[in-house]
C-alpha cells in the first residue's frame, strides 16, 4: 500500500493535472459558453508515473518534524498532493496515532504565506531573486567571512538524524563553528537530570507498568517530551480499571495533564523542591507544607503511597529556577523506589531529544553577535526574535551581524531582520532521517513535489555552496543531499527498498559530536517582585508559537480553557473576585522584564496566588495588514496571516535568565492590575458544568464489577447500552428506513414500501455503523478534532477577515464569539466539584468528545421540511447538502447541538470568508464535498471512508472485513479512546466495548437510540477526596 517515491520522475505534471481538474470544478457556467467549456479541462499525464491510479490514494511513510520526538507518519497523497497525515502504525513511538500539531504539518506545507522565491534585501527593501543570484551572493559573503575564523553563527531547529552531522561537517569545511541546535520547547532541566541520572536525554517512561504516577509539573500529555508516546502508554494504563495506576499531579496550575490526575496537590511555583526534599526524608511534612502551600496531610499521604505502590513512576518538569534540583531529586526518588529499569527505561530512550543545545549555548551565541564580531549568521527553523525572552534582547544582538541568512519557509520575526532568504523545503517535501529509538531508523522521504518551485532544500543549497569552494567540494562528492543521506543508510538495496516502503529500517545514526557547552550565563535576573506568582507554559496547541500560522491550530480550542484565537490570563475565581475582575476584563500583568495586556479568564485549576499565561500567540503584525486577498503574494511580515493581531507574547514577561539545567526560566513574580477595557474571549464552550445532565459520566474504581443500583421508576430503558444494535436499529424512524412502516399515505403501510425496500436484493440494511468512546482513556488532547477538520474539509472561521461584511469587525475569533465555529467533533470539558468557586484541590475534569450521535430515532429528521436529513439503512444519520435549504430546524431540534451551519461562503474562493486560500485548498479531501453557504453540516462518521472500504471490497469481490477501516478521529486518537465499527457484526472490535458495564448513551432518556456509546470515566480518587474534603 505504501509506495516509494522513486517511481515518480521529474517532468510529470501531476500537480497541473489536478489543478486544472479543480479549476474545472470552479469554472463558471455563463449562459453563452455553457455548451462549450462549462466543465473545465481534463488534463492527462504527459508520461504516466508507475503505481499511480488517478482517484486512488498513494501513501508515503515519512517522519514528523513538528516537534523533536519525530514520530512516524504516513502521508496520503492523491494525484500528487498530500491530503492527510496519519501516524505510522509500525513506528515505535506513536504506533499509528498522531497529535493535532503533527496533523497540522500539512498546513505548514500548504501555508499561503510561504515564500515563493529566494529574496534579497537591498537598501532595506526585499526583492525576489533567482537561485543563482542567491547562491552566488551567499558564496561571496562566506568567502568574505572566511578570513575571520569562527565568526559565524548557525541556529538550527533541533532535529535528530543525520542532518546535524551534515551541517557540522559543512560548517567546519567553511571554517565555521558547529551549529546551535535550538528547541524552545525542550525542558532542558529535565533533560539534564535524565542525562545525569539515567544516562540518556529522554528515557522511555513506562506508564503502563506503574502502580502510581506522580508528576511534579511535568505535562507529559501536552508537550513535555514525546507526548503521543506518553499518551498511548498512559491511556493503556488508565484503561486497566481496578489495576490502573493512580495519578497525582503536583504544581501551581492544573495543565491538561494535571486535569487528568486523580489528585492535585497545589504548591507555589518553585516550591516543588521542598516537597521533593520531604519525600526524600529531608525535613518534616509540616515544613514542606509551609514552604509549598500544600497541606501536610496530602504530602504525608503521598509519601506513604510512594513507599507502598511499587513500581511507581515519578516525573518532573524543570521550567522553574530550581528546575534541575527538582528533577534530580525526583530521579533520586525513582532510584530509591526501584523504578529505574522498570518504569524508566534507558534502553528504549527517545533519541530525538539527544543533542539539543542548552539555552546557555544559544545565549552565548547571542552574546557573540552582540559583541559585533559575528560577520554571518544563519537561521534554519527557530524564531528566536519571537521565542526568546524579550529581555534577552536577541533582536538588538542579531542586528549587529553584518550578513544574516534565513532558511525559513515563512515570514517570521527573525527572518524579517535577515538579508537573504533561501526558502527551505517543507519536511514533507524533502529527504531526511531520524533515529526514534536505538536501532531503528525513520526515513523522511518527500511525499510530493515541492509546492513552490522557488523553494529548495537547505541541505542542497549548502552543498551547492560547498561545490563552489575547492577545499569544501571534496567533502561533498555526492550530487545532492539525498545521495549523501542514502549512502549513509546501512544495508543493501533490498533492505533499503523495504525502508522506503515502510519508512522504517534498522540501524544506528552516528550523532554529531556536541561542542563543549558554553558556560551558563549566571542568572542575573532582577529580583522578582510582585504580588503574584507567574507561570508561563508552551501552549498545548501552538507550542512555543510555531503553530500560530496554522488555522487548524488557531481554531483548536485550548484543551484546558477552551479558548481559541486569543491569549488570556488565567487566575483563580477567588483572585478574580478580590481584584473585582470578570472574565474578559483586560488585565495588565507586569514583571521586572515587561508588561502585557490580556483578558482575564477565571480558572479553577490555578492557585489563588498564581496567574498563568500560555506562550505561542502575540506574533508581530504589520501596521497596516491587508487581510486576505488571494491574489496578493507580496510578503507581509509578522508570522503569516493567521497569527496577525492574535493575543500577546508572554516572553515579554520573562527575565531571560537560565536555570542550572540550562533552560530558560518560565516562572517568576508579577503584579496584576485591572484596566478599564473588556473584551469577549472567544470560546467554543457553552457551560463548564453539566447541570446534572449526565453528559460525561464517571464511576469510582471501587464500583467496577458491582451491579448498578436499581433505578427507581424505570423499567429497562430502550436504548440502554445492552440494547441490541440490530441492523438499522429498532426504532420508529429506523424501522421506517427499513421499510417496515411505509409512508402513512400508502395503502399497504406496515407491510412494505417505506423509504426502503426491506427485500432489497443488495441487502442494504446489513450494517449498523456505530462508535464507542472510552472516557477512561480520553485525555482531552483534541487530536481527534484536528483529524476531523483535515478529513472533512471543515473550514476554520475565526480569522479576523472571515466575519460578515455587515458587522465589519476585524477581530480574531469574532465568528467564534457568535457561535459560528464548525467543529463537527468538539471536545467538551466539564468540571465536577468546586461548585462555589472557592479554591479547592478536589475538583474533577471530565473530557468527552461530542459529535453527531447518529440517532436511530433522530430528532433532526422529522423536522426537516425538505428531507435533507434522513436515516440511511446502514444506521447513519445523513445530511444531504444539495437538498438542504438552510432552515436550521434540525439544529434547533438536536439535543446534542452537533449540527453546524454555514453562515458564510467559507468554501467559495471569491468570498472574503474563504477558508482555504491557495494553496491551502490543495489539502482538501477530494472525497468530501466542500459545503456552500447556507447549508447545515455535521459529522458523517466519515461516510467517505465507509464508501471507500465498500468500493475496495467490491473490487476485490469480498465483504468489508472487520476493523478494515476506521474514522479519521479514531485513527488519530493518541489514547485509542475512539473505536468505530459495525455494531451489527460480531467480528468487529466495537462489539466488546458496547457490552461494557461502563457503557452509556448520552441523553438516553430522550429515546434517541444513539449509535455512539460512551464508556464511563474511571476515577481513582482517595476516599478523603471523594468525600469532598476541601482544604
Amino acid at each position: 500500500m505504501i509506495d516509494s517515491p522513486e517511481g515518480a520522475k521529474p517532468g510529470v505534471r501531476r500537480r497541473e493535472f489536478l489543478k486544472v481538474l479543480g479549476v474545472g470544478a470552479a469554472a463558471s457556467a455563463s449562459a453563452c459558453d455553457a455548451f462549450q467549456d462549462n466543465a473545465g479541462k481534463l488534463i492527462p499525464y504527459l508520461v504516466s508515473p508507475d503505481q499511480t491510479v488517478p482517484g486512488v490514494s498513494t501513501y508515503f511513510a515519512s517522519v514528523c518534524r513538528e516537534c523533536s520526538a519525530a514520530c512516524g507518519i504516513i502521508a496520503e497523497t492523491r494525484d500528487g498532493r498530500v491530503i492527510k497525515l496519519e501516524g505510522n502504525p509500525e513506528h515505535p513511538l506513536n504506533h499509528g496515532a498522531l497529535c493535532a500539531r503533527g496533523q497540522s504539518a500539512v498546513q505548514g506545507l500548504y501555508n499561503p504565506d510561504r515564500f515563493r522565491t529566494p529574496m534579497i534585501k537591498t537598501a532595506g527593501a526585499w526583492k525576489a531573486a533567482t537561485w543563482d543570484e542567491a547562491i552566488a551572493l551567499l558564496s561571496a559573503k562566506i568567502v568574505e567571512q572566511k578570513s575571520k575564523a569562527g565568526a559565524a553563527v548557525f541556529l538550527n531547529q533541533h532535529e535528530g538524524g543525520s542532518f546535524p552531522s551534515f551541517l557540522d561537517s559543512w560548517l567546519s569545511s567553511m571554517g565555521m563553528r558547529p551549529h546551535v541546535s535550538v528547541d524552545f520547547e525542550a525542558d532542558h532541566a529535565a533533560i539534564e537530570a535524565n542525562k545525569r541520572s539515567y544516562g540518556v536525554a529522554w528515557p522511555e517512561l513506562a506508564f503502563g507498568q506503574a502502580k502510581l504516577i506522580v508528576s511534579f509539573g511535568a505535562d507529559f500529555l501536552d508537550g513535555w517530551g514525546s507526548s503521543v508516546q506518553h499518551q498511548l502508554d498512559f491511556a493503556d494504563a488508565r484503561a486497566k480499571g481496578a489495576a490502573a495506576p493512580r495519578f497525582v499531579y503536583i504544581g501551581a496550575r492544573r495543565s491538561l495533564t494535571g486535569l487528568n490526575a486523580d489528585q492535585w496537590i497545589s504548591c507555589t511555583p518553585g516550591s516543588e523542591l521542598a516537597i521533593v526534599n520531604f519525600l526524600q526524608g529531608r525535613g518534616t511534612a509540616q515544613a514542606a507544607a509551609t514552604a509549598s502551600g500544600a497541606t501536610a496531610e496530602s504530602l504525608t499521604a503521598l509519601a506513604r503511597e510512594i513507599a507502598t505502590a511499587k513500581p511507581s513512576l515519578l516525573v518532573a518538569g524543570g521550567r522553574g529556577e530550581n528546575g534541575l534540583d527538582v528533577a534530580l531529586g525526583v530521579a533520586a526518588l525513582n532510584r530509591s523506589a526501584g523504578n529505574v529499569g522498570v518504569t524508566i527505561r534507558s534502553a528504549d530512550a527517545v533519541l530525538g531529544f539527544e543533542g539539543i543545545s542548552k539555552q546557555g549555548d544559544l545565549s552565548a551565541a547571542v552574546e557573540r553577535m552582540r559583541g559585533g564580531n559575528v560577520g554571518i549568521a544563519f537561521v534554519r527553523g527557530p524564531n528566536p526574535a519571537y521565542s526568546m525572552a524579550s529581555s534577552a534582547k536577541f533582536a538588538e544582538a542579531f542586528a549587529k551581524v553584518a550578513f544574516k541568512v534565513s532558511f525559513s519557509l515563512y515570514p517570521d520575526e527573525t527572518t524579517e531582520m535577515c538579508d537573504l532568504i533561501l526558502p527551505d523545503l517543507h519536511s514533507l517535501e524533502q529527504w531526511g532521517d531520524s533515529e526514534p529509538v536505538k536501532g531503528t531508523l525513520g526515513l523522511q522521504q518527500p511525499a510530493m513535489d515541492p509546492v513552490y518551485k522557488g523553494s529548495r532544500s537547505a541541505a542542497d543549497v549548502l552543498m551547492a555552496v560547498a561545490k563552489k569552494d575547492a577545499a569544501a567540494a571534496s567533502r561533498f562528492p555526492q550530487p545532492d543531499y539525498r545521495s549523501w543521506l542514502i549512502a549513509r543508510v546501512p544495508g543493501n538495496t533490498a533492505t533499503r527498498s523495504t525502508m522506503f516502503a515502510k519508512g522504517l529500517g534498522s540501524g544506528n545514526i552516528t550523532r554529531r559530536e556536541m561542542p563543549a557547552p558554553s558556560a551558563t550565563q549566571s542568572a542575573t535576573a532582577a529580583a522578582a517582585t510582585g504580588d503574584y506568582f507567574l507561570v508561563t507554559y508552551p501552549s498545548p496547541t501552538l507550542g512555543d508559537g510555531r503553530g500560530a500560522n496554522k488555522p487548524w491550530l488557531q481554531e483548536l480550542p485550548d484543551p484546558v480553557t477552551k479558548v481559541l484565537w486569543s491569549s488570556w490570563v488565567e487566575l483563580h475565581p477567588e483572585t478574580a473576585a478580590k481584584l473585582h475582575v470578570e472574565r474578559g476584563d483586560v488585565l495588565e500583568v507586569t514583571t521586572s522584564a515587561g508588561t502585557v495586556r490580556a483578558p482575564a479568564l477565571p480558572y479553577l485549576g490555578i492557585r489563588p496566588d498564581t496567574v498563568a499565561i500560555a506562550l505561542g500567540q502575540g506574533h508581530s503584525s504589520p501596521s497596516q495588514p491587508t487581510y486576505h486577498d488571494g491574489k496578493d503574494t507580496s510578503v507581509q511580515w509578522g508570522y503569516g496571516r493567521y497569527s496577525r493581531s492574535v493575543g500577546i507574547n508572554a516572553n515579554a514577561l520573562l527575565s531571560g535568565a537560565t536555570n542550572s539545567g540550562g533552560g530558560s526560566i518560565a516562572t517568576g513574580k508579577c503584579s496584576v492590575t485591572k484596566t478599564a477595557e473588556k473584551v469577549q474571549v472567544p470560546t467554543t464552550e457553552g457551560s463548564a458544568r453539566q447541570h446534572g445532565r449526565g453528559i460525561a459520566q464517571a464511576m469510582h474504581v471501587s464500583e467496577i464489577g458491582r451491579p448498578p443500583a436499581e433505578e427507581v421508576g424505570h423499567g429497562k430503558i430502550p436504548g440502554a447500552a445492552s440494547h441490541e444494535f440490530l441492523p438499522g436499529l429498532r426504532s420508529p424512524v429506523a424501522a421506517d428506513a427499513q421499510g417496515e412502516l411505509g409512508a402513512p399515505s400508502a395503502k399497504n403501510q406496515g407491510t412494505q414500501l417505506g423509504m426502503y425496500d426491506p427485500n432489497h436484493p443488495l441487502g442494504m440494511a446489513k450494517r449498523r455503523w456505530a462508535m464507542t468512546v472510552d472516557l477512561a482513556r480520553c485525555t482531552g488532547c483534541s487530536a481527534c478534532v484536528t483529524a476531523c477538520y483535515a478529513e472533512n474539509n471543515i473550514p476554520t472561521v475565526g480569522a479576523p477577515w472571515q466575519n460578515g461584511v455587515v458587522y465589519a469587525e476585524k477581530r480574531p475569533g469574532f465568528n467564534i464569539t457568535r457561535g459560528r465555529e464548525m467543529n463537527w467533533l468538539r471536545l467538551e470539558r466539564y468540571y465536577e466539584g468546586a461548585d462555589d468557586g472557592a479554591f479547592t484541590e478536589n475538583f474533577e475534569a471530565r473530557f468527552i468528545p461530542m459529535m453527531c450521535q447518529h440517532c436511530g430515532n433522530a430528532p433532526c429528521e422529522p423536522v426537516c421540511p425538505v428531507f435533507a436529513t434522513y436515516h440511511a439503512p446502514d444506521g447513519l444519520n445523513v445530511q444531504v447538502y444539495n437538498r438542504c435549504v438552510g432552515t436550521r430546524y434540525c439544529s434547533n431540534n438536536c439535543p446534542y447541538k452537533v449540527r453546524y451551519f454555514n453562515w458564510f461562503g467559507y468554501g467559495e474562493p471569491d468570498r472574503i470568508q474563504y477558508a482555504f486560500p491557495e494553496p491551502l485548498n490543495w489539502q482538501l479531501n477530494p472525497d468530501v464535498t466542500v459545503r456552500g453557504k447556507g447549508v447545515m453540516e455535521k459529522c458523517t462518521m466519515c461516510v467517505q471512508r465507509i464508501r471507500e472500504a465498500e468500493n475496495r471490497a467490491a473490487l476485490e469481490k469480498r465483504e468489508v472485513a472487520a476493523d478494515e477501516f476506521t474514522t479519521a478521529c479514531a485513527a488519530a486518537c493518541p489514547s485509542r479512546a475512539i473505536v468505530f465499527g459495525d455494531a451489527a457484526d460480531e467480528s468487529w472490535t466495537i462489539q466488546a466495548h458496547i457490552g461494557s458495564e461502563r457503557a452509556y448513551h448520552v441523553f438516553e432518556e430522550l429515546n434517541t437510540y444513539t449509535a455512539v456509546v460512551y464508556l464511563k470515566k474511571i476515577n481513582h480518587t482517595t476516599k478523603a477526596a471523594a468525600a469532598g474534603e476541601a482544604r
Partner: protein
Amino acid sequence: MTQRRKWTAIPGLLLLAVGAVALSAYSGASSSQNNSPVQPIAFPHPLHAAGNLNMNCLYCHNTANKSPDPGLPAVSTCMGCHLIVRADKPEIQKLAKYYAMGAGTPVPWVRIHKVPDYVRFPHMRHVNAGVTCQSCHGPVQQMTQVYQYSSLNMGWCVNCHVNGYDPREGLKATGVVDTSTTVTPDAERKRARYDCASCHY
C-alpha cells in the same frame, strides 16, 4: 378578474414563465446534454474504438475498472503508436508538439461529462457490475466529435438504480445486434442502492 388585474397578472405570469424557462435552461438540472465542444485535437474515436482497430475502451481509459476516476491516456500512450503511425498527419503533428519528447505540455482536453461536486460517481463500481461504457456515454465508437449522450441528471441515475440495469440493453448500446424479442426477466436486472448517501456526501 377585473381588466386591470388581468393586465398586471398576465404579463407577470408570462415573465415568471420566461424566468423559469431561463433558469431551468441555465441550471444544472437541465443538463448539458448533447454538448459537443471542439477539442484541441480532433481525436476520432471511430478510428480507434471501431473498425479495424476496435480497441477496448479500457486500453486508454485504463483506470475505469479500478478507480472512481476513469483515467485519460497519458500523452505518451498516444505517442506509443503515433511516433510512427500517421506521424505526417496534421492532427498527429499537433499531438507530437504537445508531447515534445516527454518535456512538453499535456493536451488540454475539454471536459464533457461532469457531475456536480456533491456527487460521487465511482466508475469502477459500474464497470465491474457489467454496465457497458456505452450505456451512459452512448455510441462513442461512432462519434467523430464526442458529445454528452445522457442527461446525467439525478432522475436518470436513479432510474437505473431503482428499476435495474438490463445487461441486454447495455450490450445493444455497444452495437451488439440482439434479435430476441423476449423481455429481460426482472431478476436479471441489476439494481443498486439508491439512498442519498450512496452518492451524496
